């Protein structure tokens, strides 16, 4: 999977939509599900913590354009803390 994720981005450009990740950091409880189950490994744990002390996710370096707006992160997040929208542009 890792190998695949590193495939040059424009290969997929025509086929899959691109997504923008939105985050409500204060809702995150750092469960890591979005990170683990993102098929594109777009996310990683950030170093920052929210008021409750949880490390919310951030975009992994190099994955800025990897999100395909599959919405799995939206669906798996127990906290309604993350979602994506189709990136325009």
């Amino acid at each position, binding site marked *: 999977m890792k190998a695949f994720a590193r495939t040059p981005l424009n290969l997929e450009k025509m086929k899959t939509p691109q997504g923008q990740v939105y985050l409500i950091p204060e809702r995150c*409880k750092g469960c890591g599900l979005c990170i683990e189950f993102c098929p594109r490994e777009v996310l990683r744990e950030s170093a920052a913590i929210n*008021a*409750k*002390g949880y490390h919310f996710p951030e975009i992994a370096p190099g994955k800025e354009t990897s999100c395909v707006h599959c919405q799995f992160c939206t669906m798996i997040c127990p906290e309604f803390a993350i979602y994506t929208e189709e990136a325009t542009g």
Partner: protein
Amino acid sequence: MYTEIRLAGFGGQGIGLAGVLLGRAAALYGGLEAVMTQAYGPEARGGASSANLVLADEPIDYPFVQQPDILVAMSQEAYTKFRPTAKPEALVLIDTELVTPFAEDVVQAIPATRLAEGMGRRIVANVIMVGFFTRQTGFLAREAVEQAVRESLRPKLVPLNLKALAIGYEYE
């Protein structure tokens, strides 16, 4: 003597055990009356956790801590929430690395969590703090607290925790 103590931090830090150790030491080996209460409930999950101790040399009627004479804060949230509930002149013990005290506040600080990590067991930060507490407050004999450790924990955990206690006690 009538001393109110609040130990606070987040879930998983073993705040309750710290309270039990101090309460035991006071009650069984310190000849004091001791009462401990804790906040319960789903609301406490993952969030703030506290143990509240009243130590006295007379029977303790009202078991709750109202205005702590001593506050032990092992998280920023706990400090921020509970510092105002404590006496202005209260003795405040904090974990240096987890808590940044208010500017005007006078506190005694120990990097308990880091020291615990140094021992390879983050989980004993609470006992390090207990050691620190014992030394700073002075009204409990070190031996009493050691005895409490021996009686409260499963035998195989005792040596590690006695060591943690010593580290806290001897921390300068």
